[in-house]
């Protein structure tokens, strides 16, 4: 028995997914909306980064479906008791990676702990040794065979990845051949030579790379701690993967919070001018002159105090951590709308003088309709560019804020918290480096892909860059 749990951020994340899907359906028949996207997917770089981003997104979405499992029934129980631990679909998929917890630090692929421990031998003698890990490489009778075992598992993984990609290649070939009414064999050849308009070959290569990684991790992480374990013995790989959701939530929900402010106020200021403009300009210049970190720190600390005083509001720890995450998104959003607002105000000032807005006025079209039908659609490209570019900045901002201590809840797994923890690990001797490296690699890949993708989006949507 399970009980679904819908956290605040889950609801908002899925709302966002629905909005994107609705927009995609709407845009399908509108040539002017499709054309720039078609240009985006023609770029090889954009397609490759899109594949990487999709992998992250799928992980994040799987991690956003939460539930609680029922506790085993005890005698005399009236109703089912649910566990206080909130799990996600991703947790069940990761299975052993989550549950195989060691005692303390262990290096990647290690079979022994990273620290000496006093162990009482059979003869009653106490020695200080590096004990074998409980799970990592536990199936090996002799740790010396580790290399061969890893190689064998890697080979299986490679075979799985290649066959999965090959199946995908065939599937893509069949679909394209059917759509273009061409023989399958010719289509497959075209795909392999990279002669299609949309760079399918690049996409397939990116998929192959990701499939290879996933297969490797899946095969190896069952028997080893691929990225090592942290101070309390938790798998670093698990932490890194779980942090993906935190990063994505911060990157997307913050813009969701920011957009209404920026779009609404920016258009108002530009279209109505006069005192409306004065008030809005005053608002954002004031907000802009307060250091953002100061505002965020003050708000987060106040929230923290409130939560500590009202523990009865939260049924589980997860809910509490989630609310803090949402609050961080809110406060980040409130402090970051000014830039886009200023941009939209300027553009609206320009657009409102254009002839087609004047023509609409001459028809007696109401102001609200002019704003929605004539101004908003012509501002959307700016909004989109800003959202995509801001995304990576926000992911990085989370890391910085958590490092400073005013970011997400310490129990929430996030790259920022991992980096914060690594501060002490780097200082100890011998050094523990894998936490930092793992967080860095995961975050770097996401931000790089997002940046490359946003470049392509900007090129396609910015009218000033068109010839």
């Amino acid at each position: 028995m399970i009980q679904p749990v819908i956290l605040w951020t889950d609801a908002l994340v899925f709302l966002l997914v629905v909005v994107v899907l609705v927009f995609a359906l709407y845009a399908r028949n509108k040539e002017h909306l499709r054309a720039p996207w078609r240009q985006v997917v023609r770029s090889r770089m954009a397609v490759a980064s899109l594949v990487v981003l999709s992998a992250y997104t799928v992980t994040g979405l799987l991690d956003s479906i939460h539930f609680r499992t029922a506790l085993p029934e005890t005698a005399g129980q009236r109703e089912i008791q649910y566990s206080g631990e909130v799990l996600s679909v991703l947790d069940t998929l990761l299975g052993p990676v989550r549950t195989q917890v060691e005692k303390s630090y262990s290096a990647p692929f290690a079979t022994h702990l990273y620290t000496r421990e006093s162990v009482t031998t059979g003869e009653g003698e106490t020695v200080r040794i590096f004990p074998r890990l409980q799970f990592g490489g536990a199936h090996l009778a002799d740790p010396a065979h580790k290399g061969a075992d890893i190689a064998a598992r890697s080979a299986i993984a490679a075979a799985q990845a290649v066959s999965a990609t090959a199946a995908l290649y065939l599937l893509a070939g069949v679909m394209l051949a059917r759509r273009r009414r061409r023989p399958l064999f010719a289509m497959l050849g075209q795909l392999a030579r990279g002669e299609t308009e949309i760079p399918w070959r690049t996409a397939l290569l990116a998929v192959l790379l990701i499939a290879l990684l996933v297969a490797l991790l899946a095969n190896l992480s069952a028997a080893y701690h691929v990225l090592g374990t942290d101070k309390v013995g938790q798998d670093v790989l698990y932490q890194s993967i779980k942090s993906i959701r935190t990063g994505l939530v911060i990157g997307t929900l913050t813009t969701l919070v920011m957009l209404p402010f920026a779009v609404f106020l920016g258009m108002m200021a530009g279209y109505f001018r006069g005192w409306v403009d004065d008030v809005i300009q005053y608002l954002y210049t004031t907000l802009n002159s307060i250091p953002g970190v100061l505002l965020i720190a003050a708000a987060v600390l106040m929230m923290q105090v409130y939560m500590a005083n009202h523990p009865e509001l939260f049924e589980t720890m997860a809910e509490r951590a989630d609310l803090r995450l949402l609050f961080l998104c809110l406060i980040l959003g409130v402090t970051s709308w000014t830039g886009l607002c200023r941009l939209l105000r300027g553009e609206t000032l320009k657009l409102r003088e254009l002839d087609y807005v004047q023509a609409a006025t001459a028809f007696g079209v109401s102001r609200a309709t002019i704003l929605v039908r004539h101004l908003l659609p012509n501002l959307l490209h700016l909004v989109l560019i800003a959202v995509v570019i801001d995304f990576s900045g926000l992911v990085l901002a989370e890391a910085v804020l958590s490092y400073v201590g005013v970011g997400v809840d310490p129990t929430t797994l996030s790259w920022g918290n991992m980096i914060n923890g690594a501060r002490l690990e780097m200082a100890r001797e011998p050094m523990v480096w894998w936490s930092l490296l793992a967080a860095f690699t995961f975050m770097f890949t996401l931000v790089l892909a997002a940046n490359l993708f946003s470049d392509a989006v900007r090129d396609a949507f910015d009218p000033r860059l068109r010839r």
Partner: protein
Amino acid sequence: MTQPLLDVTDLRVRIGAGDRGIRPVDGVSFHIRRGETFALLGESGCGKSMTALSLLRLLPQPAGRITGGSVKLDGEELMALPETGMRSIRGGRIAMIFQEPMTSLNPVMTVGAQIEESLQQHQGLRGAVARQRVLELLDAVGIPDAERRYGEYPHQLSGGMKQRIMIAIALAGDPDLLIADEPTTALDVTIQAQVLELIKQLQRERGMAVLLITHDLGVVSGMADHVAVMYAGQIVEQAPRDAFFAQPRHPYSRMLFSALPDSSKREERLAVIPGTVPALNQTFQGCRFAGRCDRGWAHCERAVPEWFETGSETGVRCHLADPQISAPGSRAEEADRATGQRVYGEAGAVRTELLQVDGLKVFFPIHKGFFKRVVGHVRAVDDVSISIPRGQTLALVGESGCGKTTAGKAILQLLEATAGKVQFEGVELTALRGEALRSRRRDFQIIFQDPFSSMNPRMSVGDIIEEGMTAQRIGGAAPQRRQRVQQLLEQVGLRPEHAHRYPHEFSGGQRQRICIARALAVNPKLIVCDEPTSALDVSVQAQILNLLQDLQSELGLSYLFITHDLSVVSYLADRVAVMYLGRIVEEGEVHEVLDSPRHPYTEALLSAVPSIDAGGETTVIRLEGDLPSPSSPPAGCHFHPRCPRAVAECTRSYPQRTDLSATHQVRCHLYPG
């Protein structure tokens, strides 16, 4: 024969590669002698500017490249020169001036420094010597008070002044050849006359050759010694000026002439060139003009016409000139019947005023300082009174900045009038507010100048046309409205299925048709046409003017036609009001004002229009200086500082209105009441 200064043979340019690559210049040959003015004439998109740029090897990089041909300057092959060699040619031996003086000057450098830069590059002059030479040049291009102007920035100068500065920069290298790419298109007629006069005078003094690129037959007539007509990347006709204007040989040239509106063609349909310039990314099987030609026959579609020399330096690229082919009878006879007819009768005798504007004023406050105090007003429209009867056209004529567009928008209540009355069918529009004004708006509509910015690029054509109906809640339910949209599209000469397309898929002329359909959708009684044809080519302009005429006789519309183009006025308008600095200086029936102008400004305006009939040598009444700022108009008569006939009284008071006849009024001290 002496060697020509510039000899271009078989020049070919290609932009982009593959199927999308276009050939804007495809086998162009001509030559220019010293001291000669050679005019390259054609519509937009014909490759005129590309030809000029490729002479200097300044094609847009990396897409453009010269694929063939030779350009010889004084016998020296320019195509073979290294890039460093080209640098001394550009600006040195060949100088160029561009269409848009506003963007051709660097806004953060003083004009003196910009001229000096060119002097330093080509003559190696520095310091005091250079400064002295700059002052001489400023003097030569007719800029008064050169000492002061030397240290000024481009934004402090007017459009005409900036174009003079551009010419001064071009002259700094002491060029043998001056390429002028539409040098006066962005300027007003009176300023255009000044600039053209200046180019002519400089050419006489220095013996420069001029390559003049233009679309304006009037300018060609006044300036050129030799004319080449370009169409779709090729020169289709070449002739000395007099021969060309006496008898144009290529059908395209002839149709350009007949598409020009003027008073002699009143009440007739203008000849139109159907269609548009073909896309240049194709390989042509036949004549490039075949699809639009009124004399074409089957042979034109099959064979590419050769270049036929018909005299020394005269030639035409047309099968009609081929002595070995006998052309069948003209397809044009049918068209001629249509164009020759008097299709538009005089307006009915009953004269009821539709719109009556009385003492309209529009002032824009000038804010200054920290508290944004009002320190003055821009008097854009200052006491304008006009009236338009039903089914008639009033033309509002004036130079840019005289307030004619502002007046139009204030009449439509798109701008708030500072004072005055606007009565539409007896209803005072300035007093209407909110819903009452909103529902009234269906009766008066507007067509804009720029067909590219006047439609929302994110809406389909059908939605654009339907918008007015939806806003006014007329036209019934959705299916009926859609039917009406299709009917409107047919009415303006487009196809019903165009409703599903987006504005960017249409050419300028087609867009203007859509704008007209949009205005018609709400069944207006008055349409304000704000320079509806000034962004269009001559042949397309004729199509639009015909359409406007047709609609007027069909639907009994009234037009307020705002324009600076007097030939359009004489063709289309019933009455004319001439505006200068926010006020109407002369008003009357079109023949009264255009045939016997009384106000010195009207006289000057009319004489400045380059005419193709006048044989080149007309006495242009030159106006000194530019339009003064409407924020501080001159005391007395606004026109007196520029007026060639000003008397002492003019500096003291603004003249009262004088009725010269029942329909002709003027405000000038020369005609005391």
